[in-house]
């Protein structure tokens, strides 16, 4: 049903719904490619659930933004969902941005991929995925978002204008980053290519709330051997209760796993 609805509005951009889209497009671009001059981020291919949550947060004030708040407040929840689904399914190339200063790039890369023990900040990629391509429908991609937006977003976390992370991880991270760190991170991710939205050619993602799978992720984890290097992968944690029990794998001692 929803799929049909979206198809209709895409084909006939004259109805009420398309007016909202046109509103979005005014800043975020016709295909959600973003507008660096206006500070509007690329939203094409962001996880649907992420976009929905942002619209809800703009509407209820957890994300304090003078431009987005009135727009989000005027959108009924079902329109927010439809818009989020629509932009999650797009794969526009990122809008051209001014190349960021390369001087801070190494610092940005370090923070993104490694973190910094001195300020107790973990690598962005733990949650935002290898290459900053986003993860599991939960975290947005950062790669290819223009640096002006990224800097503003990190400053929102740092300054408390953004309270959309119930764990407060992002708030603490934002507060730990210096203004120079924020600029460096924004420059680094702004210079990275946005992730390929491999699901964009498939049916509109409104049928599923999952984030499309992303391709092109390319970091190789360190391949060390541990205390039992070279061991076959038949771990000792099988059997009833194997794996998921506490204290590691609290496998039961029975041979057969027979129910007592």
């Amino acid at each position, binding site marked *: 049903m929803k799929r049909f609805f979206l198809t209709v509005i895409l084909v006939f951009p004259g109805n009420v719904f398309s007016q909202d889209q046109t509103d979005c497009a005014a800043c975020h671009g016709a295909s959600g490619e973003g507008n660096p001059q206006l500070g509007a981020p690329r939203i094409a291919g962001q996880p649907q659930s992420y976009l929905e949550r942002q619209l809800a947060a703009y509407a209820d004030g957890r994300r304090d933004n003078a431009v987005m708040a009135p727009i989000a407040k005027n959108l009924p929840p079902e329109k927010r969902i439809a818009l989020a689904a629509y932009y999650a399914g797009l794969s526009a190339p990122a809008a051209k941005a001014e190349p960021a200063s390369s001087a801070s790039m190494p610092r940005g890369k370090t923070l993104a991929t490694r973190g910094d023990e001195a300020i107790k900040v973990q690598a962005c990629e733990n949650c935002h995925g290898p290459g900053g391509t986003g993860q599991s429908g939960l975290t947005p991609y950062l790669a290819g978002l223009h640096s002006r937006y990224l800097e503003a977003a990190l400053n929102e976390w740092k300054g408390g204008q953004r309270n959309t992370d119930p764990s407060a991880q992002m708030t603490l991270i934002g507060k730990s980053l210096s203004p120079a760190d924020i600029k460096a991170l924004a420059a680094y991710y702004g210079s990275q290519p946005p992730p390929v939205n491999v699901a964009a050619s498939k049916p509109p993602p409104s049928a599923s709330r999952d984030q499309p799978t992303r391709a092109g992720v390319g970091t190789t984890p360190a391949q060390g051997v541990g205390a039992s290097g070279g061991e076959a992968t038949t771990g000792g944690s099988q059997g009833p*209760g194997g794996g998921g029990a506490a204290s590691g794998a609290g496998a039961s001692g029975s041979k057969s796993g027979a129910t007592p």
Partner: protein
Amino acid sequence: MAARLPSTDVVLLGAGLVGTILGRELTRAGLNVVALERGEPRSTVPDFQGPAMHDELRYSVRKALMMDTARETYTFRNSGSETALPLRRLQGFLPGTGVGGSLVHWNGQTYRFHEADFRMRTKLDERYGKTFLPAECTIQDWGVGYADLEPHYDRFEYLLGIAGRAGNLLGKKIPGGNVLEEQRAREYPTRPQKEPYGSAIFRKAAEGLGYHPFPQPSANMSEPYTNPEGLTLKTCMFCGYCERYGCEHYAKASAQTVLLPVLLKDPKFKLRTHCQVQKISLDKSGRNATGVTYVDAQGREMEQPAKLVIVGLYALNNVRMLLLSKIGAPYDPATGKGVVGKNYAYQTLSAVQVFFDEKVNINPFMRSGACGTLIADFVADNFDHAKLGFAGGAYIGEVMSHGRPIEFHPTPPGTPAWGSEWKKAVARHYNHTAVLNVHGSSIASRRNYLDLDPTYRDAWGQPLLRMTFDFPENDVKMSAYVTERATEIAKAMGGQRVAGAPRKGPYTTTQYQTTHNTGGAIMGNDRSTSVVNRYLQSWDVPNVFVIGASAYPQNASYNPTGTLGALAYWAAHAIVNDYLKRPGPLA
């Protein structure tokens, strides 16, 4: 010939939980402290960062954070009549190595023991009579009581920021917390972690059967927390890679997150890594330690003189260090005489799986190391043992810590162990299975002990520690009884099928059970039956303190780390307030 280094006030053996707590307390008291760690230095950044940290093959299967068995290991046998063989791969339990020790890779399940645990012998005799247990059970009192340790439990929990809910606040019972716990002076520092779905199903079923479920006390943070050292922990992200892994998010309490950043800035504290301590040196009287000898990363033998020696290694290695250094009389199982190596105990675990239909999504991957819900109704002496014929008990909980792809493949009994049917069954049940853990005590038995192996040696030529252990009859009975109760709860959870079985012998080290090895350097008030006094001080060499789960005369139902932290603060308090003023025996 060892190179002799300048003397220091204190030498710490091991830079794990004990080493960092004692390091902090003793430098604070103005002492110069040298910590010797056999493993590598490491910190949250860069060593624990993703995506590399979520390499299950490297960390879970190949055990990257654990003791290197190519250099040193233990030998094992089930009984004194067998020849022990070395554990060439770690499977049954996982001693950590490196800065932070096992606190880096632990799950964070943080409990307090009961008064009935600390005075187990006295309490059992009083309640059930002196002939209740066979003479083979060498259960002893600890020499300390819960009231002695309460302030130190409190301090440890506030250092770590434990997430939990009090059930007994100064005697006031609070439903929703553990109403069966000993009374605590104040609430946990942080609120409990979120309850996973499977745990919620367990809670309802347990409540329906009249039990008292409560959230598991967790060293994985439920919210940001700044500890008394001024260090801030962040919120756990439920990534499912906790035990066997370091935490990338600064969200699990470990030496790295709660103490080391402060300690490493202290000029009185010196940390040396890749130092393999060979022995504690004694003077001619044999009553006074003069320091330690170690081999450094370049293979050089070094002598570190010190006025005070703190042994804070993994429990088994504490015992080995005493035996190698000839401190205390080794235990002889034939006569029951001697103390070092005596009362080695473990933990008695079993599990019950609940297989749900496909509408019930358990999401086992979305877990922390210490989330979930459990009951303490069958812990310690919380229930009447008179007609049961065993001592001890177990908690029952839906406290799954992960659903990692290599390790977690729940399938119902009758499923082939491999092939397409097995694959189908794993796909069918992976997201629809809850596991109940039955985490039980381990009593001391005359036949279970530790000594030096007569045959096998480590890479430095020193004898390995030999473990002789099998589950005592008492614990097999206990497991049978409590696992039956767990099965009843499992059935009440509404699954299609329930599968589980109690723990039975023989004990095998090839199947992971738990890393909770205890005893061998036990504490007590009688020097003829214990290795260290109630302040963890060697009876024989008063300037040596041996702190660890090695001090437990027998192991309790709960996970041991909370008590270990309390004992570390308890011993530190005695050293700072009494020993330093009058060096010599404290008891």
